[in-house]
């Protein structure tokens, strides 16, 4: 975990920039976007997410992002709990739901604590036959894990370093879940060299059908 106190002495940024002064900021950004874009096929998305002009990192913004994370975790935890309760899963798929479901519940507690009193109660969810039909379960698991991961990745740049360090402990576990679900579905667990982020509105659209 980050141990800094969150304040930045005046001038520290300028001091650190000195070593890189021979490279222009604009040039670096252009090059990095080009590299990301070439790898992920999403130069526009990466640029949109990384630029966010005028936005400030702040504890309030952290809370907003972690609240979205909490919704994702609540949704996933409810999905696995319902599937396990339905009892139609067998073998490694059942094991996946059990292991991952337990971890999502831990993520819910972790993020609820991070968000504080405004965390409130979980909304209701509806999953239809995705928790009773094993093939639909697996497709939905892949979708929920991939969507959650992609929006976490997109919002990482908008978190303060302390909140990013806290969230990162969860994010790579979500990536493991996504890879595991894909493997069970017979897909390549890691389809691209650089994961492509999505925006908050894209994530909300993806999750909307599950909210009652």
């Amino acid at each position: 975990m980050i141990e800094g106190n969150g304040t930045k002495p005046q001038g520290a940024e300028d001091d650190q920039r000195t070593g890189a002064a021979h490279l222009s900021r604009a040039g670096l950004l252009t090059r990095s976007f080009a590299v990301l874009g070439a790898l992920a096929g999403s130069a526009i998305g990466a640029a949109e997410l990384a630029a966010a002009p005028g936005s400030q990192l702040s504890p309030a913004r952290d809370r907003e992002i972690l609240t979205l994370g909490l919704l994702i975790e609540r949704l996933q935890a409810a999905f696995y709990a319902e599937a396990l309760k339905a009892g139609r899963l067998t073998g490694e798929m059942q094991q996946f739901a059990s292991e991952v479901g337990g971890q999502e519940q831990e993520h819910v507690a972790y993020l609820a604590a991070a968000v504080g009193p405004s965390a409130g109660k979980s909304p209701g969810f509806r999953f239809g036959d995705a928790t009773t039909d094993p093939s639909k379960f697996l497709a939905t698991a892949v979708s929920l894990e991939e969507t959650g991961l992609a929006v976490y990745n997109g919002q990482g740049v908008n978190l303060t370093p302390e909140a990013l360090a806290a969230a990162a402990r969860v994010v790579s576990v979500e990536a493991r879940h996504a890879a595991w679900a894909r493997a069970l579905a017979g897909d390549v667990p890691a389809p691209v060299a650089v994961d492509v982020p999505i925006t908050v509105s894209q994530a909300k659209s993806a999750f909307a059908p599950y909210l009652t």
Partner: protein
Amino acid sequence: MPKSNPPSLRLSDFDLDGAVRETFARLPHETRSGFLRRAAGAGSVVAGAAALRPTTAAASATAGDFSILNFALALEYLQASFYTEAQRIGALHGALAQQADVVGGHERAHVKAFKSLLGSAAIKEPSFNFHGVTENPDAFRSTAVAFEDLAVAAYKQQAPLIQSRAYLAGALAIHSVEARHAAWIRRLAGFLPAANAFDDPLSDSKVIDIVNSTHFVTLQTPDTSAQTSPGFTG
């Protein structure tokens, strides 16, 4: 069905030849001391506020960022070389061979990306000797599990220290791919792909210590005449 957690995933358990060898400490660029100084710089800022990402959105790259990117490049060199050698030797078959093909391609893409971003500041690729682990499917699997879990922990530690939002976005997008790689190879090795609800970070000095203990980095490139300790002789 994956049933167990491996007793240990530390690369330090793969002490294959017993040789006392420095590894990342022998990275060639500006000699070892230069790399370590920069790596230590990246780590020490954790304790202070000086390098925390500015609260403005337009944060730009810093010297510290280059240090972190070079550290990431070193890890990617190690992984890319490992998979490339395994592919070349051809001892892997089936799902394991597919994993090496796909993941090797990713690690080579990561190397290319970091080299491109760093330009002339990029560290040069050291020489590796994997002491046979690329020739044996079991040893390959164990080593790959250790490499991938290590990469996840290393990226997780460094990401919050990155000042540039563009670089941070890239690092995060690679961090989660390393976690996918870890889950993939863990499953093939019979371990739970996600064994814990939380993944913890690992400091750069600990990452370097672990890599050192493997003796996989064995030779320096010719521009590292400042080497003060004996070279690899095994």
